[in-house]
């Protein structure tokens, strides 16, 4: 309790001001409300042409005040945090949600945090600049040493410390300090007129030392450089329906696009998702079990509590092919008569929370990945992807390959140029015919966009085979 009040003091708010603000929002006719205080200190460093050219540092803070009545939401936010502004925002939010009604008093209670998933004490954002600049320079040298055709190296390191204090309608105050780091390496390889790009990177809710441990940064460098050089010899991708083997890890973006968004509670409450009303139905092959888990230590998509103060959890979305449930925030859970799942997230204090994914992945199966590839006569083996997108109503989704190969007679052969894959969410997982024993989570590079709000997420996948996915190449 004293810890949370100390944290609130940094926002210049005391207990009486909170009680007054919450009291002004809550009335008989208001179902839910919260205050979300946020302070973010962030730093971005980037290197290109062998030198660190950009260093930027920002400090942003503010408060968002929300009142919810039925399915109406009033939201007001401000970057000035003081008692008067809070009250003004509270009145605005309440007026929007519903007029009239009596005020009620709310006592401020203790913390509701149950996890401690990222106990970082030495934040990367506080690390001396020289150490971070030194790493970027080593990355540049290492990447150029991989192959003389690497002609451009771009490396960036981003870090932030976000401190949030969430005051819920029942007077709970939850404080969470969230580190986030990301190291990215992009190489451009040139051979005559042929110019190709390769990227790799990683990060999470961890300290700067994470990147030096086990030479992680070198892995990123080698992968980015190798991918750029590999793509120099890539052939045109074939076009049409094919059997596709997805490698482990980041290709889990398939799950995020094909089914994850469609299982978010808001779309399902409104009946606008291709998955609306399908709980209990077979939506995937019996080999497939998919979970969303916000409780994995240090992962980019993990949170101790979501942005509404609900502890995160592991939610089974699909079990042995059967649709089990949706991802919920407080509002949609209340309106659908279910419990929130700790998936109420927002980009910042300037955004209204909504159901979002955390770390979404498929559980491992039993097959040897090498056997899965050997079983394909002619198809595609895709191990890395760029972005993806989904139309949650029709269920159509796409994602674009950044490292992929032809499979011919059970052997991985030529690399192919960036092909886009397209499929139908409620159908594609029924076409899964093999699941490998090699589940991997991605390295911590995912950012998910929804209604203009970006949040960090994770994905994961074992090697899987999908029969008959449409591959969008140029070669007929």
């Amino acid at each position, binding site marked *: 309790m004293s810890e949370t009040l100390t944290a609130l003091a940094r926002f210049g708010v005391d207990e009486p001001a909170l009680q007054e603000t919450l009291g002004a929002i809550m009335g008989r006719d208001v179902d839910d409300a919260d205050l979300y205080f946020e302070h973010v200190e962030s730093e971005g460093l980037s290197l290109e042409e062998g*030198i660190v*050219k*950009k*260093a*930027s*540092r*920002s*400090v*942003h*803070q503010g408060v968002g005040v929300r009142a919810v009545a039925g*399915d*109406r*939401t*009033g*939201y007001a*936010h*401000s*970057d000035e945090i003081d008692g008067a502004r809070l009250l003004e925002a509270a009145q605005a939010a309440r007026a*929007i949600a519903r007029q009239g009604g009596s005020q009620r008093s709310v006592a401020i209670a203790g913390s509701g945090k149950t996890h401690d998933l990222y106990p970082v004490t030495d934040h990367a954002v506080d690390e001396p*600049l*020289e150490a971070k*600049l030194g790493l970027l320079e080593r990355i540049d040298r290492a990447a150029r040493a991989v192959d003389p055709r690497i*002609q*451009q190296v*771009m490396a960036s390191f981003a870090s932030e410390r976000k401190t949030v204090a969430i005051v819920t309608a029942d007077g709970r105050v939850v404080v969470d300090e969230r580190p986030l780091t990301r190291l990215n390496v992009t190489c*451009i390889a*040139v051979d005559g007129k042929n*110019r*190709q790009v390769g990227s790799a990177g990683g990060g999470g809710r961890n300290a700067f030392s994470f990147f030096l441990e086990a030479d992680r940064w070198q892995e990123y460098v080698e992968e980015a450089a190798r991918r750029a050089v590999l793509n120099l010899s890539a052939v045109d991708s074939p*076009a*049409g*329906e094919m059997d596709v083997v997805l490698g482990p890890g980041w290709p889990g973006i398939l799950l995020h696009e094909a089914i994850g968004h469609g299982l978010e509670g808001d779309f399902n409450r*409104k*009946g*606008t998702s*291709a998955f609306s009303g399908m709980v209990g139905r077979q939506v995937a092959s019996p080999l497939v079990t998919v979970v969303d888990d916000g409780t994995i230590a240090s992962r980019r998509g993990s949170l101790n509590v979501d942005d509404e103060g609900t502890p995160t959890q592991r939610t089974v979305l699909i079990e042995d092919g059967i649709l089990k449930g949706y991802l919920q925030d407080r509002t949609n859970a209340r309106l659908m008569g279910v419990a929130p799942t700790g998936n109420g997230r927002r980009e910042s204090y*300037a955004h209204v929370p909504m159901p979002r994914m955390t770390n979404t992945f498929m559980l491992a199966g039993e097959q040897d990945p090498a056997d899965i590839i050997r079983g394909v006569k002619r198809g595609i083996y895709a191990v890395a992807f760029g*972005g*993806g*997108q*989904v*139309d949650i*109503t*029709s269920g*159509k989704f*796409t*994602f*674009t390959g950044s490292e992929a190969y032809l499979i011919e007679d059970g052997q991985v052969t030529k690399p192919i*140029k*960036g*092909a*886009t894959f*397209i*499929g139908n969410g409620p159908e594609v997982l029924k076409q899964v015919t093999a699941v490998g024993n090699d589940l991997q989570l991605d390295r911590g590079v995912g950012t998910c966009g929804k209604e203009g709000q970006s949040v960090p997420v994770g994905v994961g996948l074992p090697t899987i085979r999908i029969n008959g996915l*449409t*591959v*969008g*190449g*140029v070669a*007929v």
Partner: protein
Amino acid sequence: MTKDVTEDRQALLQHVLDTAKRHGATAADALFVSGRSTEVRVRLGETEQVKQSRSKGVGLRVFVGSRSATTSSSDLSKASLEDLIARTVAAARVTAEDPAARLPDAALYADEPPGDLELFDERLLSLDAETAIEMARACEDAARSADPRVTNSEGGDMSWGVSETHFANTLGVYRVKRGGSVGLWTTPLVEAEGVKERDYWYTSARYLADLASPESVGREATRRALRRLGARKPKTCQVPIIFEAPVASRLLGALAGAVCGGAVYRNASYLAGLVGERIAAPEVTIVDNPHIKRGPASKPFDGEGLATSQTVVVEGGVLKSYLLDTYSAAKLGLQTTRNASRGLAGTPSASPTNLWMQPGQASLEELIADVKQGLLVTELIGFGVNAITGDYSQGASGLWIENGQIAYPVSELTIASTLPEMWRTLDGIGSDRDPHRSVSAPSLRIAKMTVAGS
């Protein structure tokens, strides 16, 4: 806006620049941006959400010789700014020497920004949530009542906002601009034979009075959703492809990315080194014009405080110029085209303003009429455009064309080619460009692309 407020902001920026110099900066430029906006959403006739936003902040770029660093903050207390500025100058001292990093030449500021571009509508200040809710409701109602197959809705939305930007640098330049915008859109769902589809339509403008009527927007949204019903998956083939104007603008957006200075000097653009070369069919002319009255991306001065100017990017199919800021121009040995764009955080970088492709003579119907077998693309999804290599492979849906007529809708397909090939083999330009978009192309027909389906 009163005179006092202006002077206040000017004084704040002067304080920021002075503080930077006191800590050892040899040059600097700074922005103050403040804004107010409101968004309302009505769903199935009921108000679902009202959101009010206020923001303000300072952005600063400092130089210590040819080293630089940037910072931004929404905490404008003197103590906090002092600390942040000190840290930023210290950061600049440890970044590398970069001879291209500098403020624009002082002589370039002799050009005065253009007069009133009509970017700020006073009426937006007094627009209230109730009026906006009524307009959003009318828009959604029109969509819902347009056809019995509309079974659901993601709502009718309206948003509007105003902002004010003050710019100052250590060359003694100080400039102010104001702007506003308003948008109205709706997203109906339609259903037939157990299949759901959705689409949206919108109107946006600088001035409230320039919005299309809520009813026309609603009806168009439903028309667009209905035409997707009953979609089939086409066979894999190579055919002519027509991009309907809204998606053609995305194709132009890919070209826009490839002509911006940042991509060009990094050699991360398929158009790097091609100024003076033919890069598109001879009918293609593309101009970046920041001075269009009430234009969505019009601006009197750029992110470095330079008076903006018009740039011909492509003329007669020949690449004439890149879009540059001071840094990318210096890297390429060229002059800035005054296209620096800048948020509060980070360094300026070149980006287009109103990048408009000149329309042709043909109506969309006429473009379709010449096609024996082909595809009219009405939606693109995904990120399969690579501006570095020029490779193009996008998820799409649209309408199949047979013998010059729309035959049936198609979906779950991709279209693929390369950007250079597509622009070179462009063989039809529509007359239908959308003036509401900042990057805006008319409907375009490409002679042949690969369609991947079943």
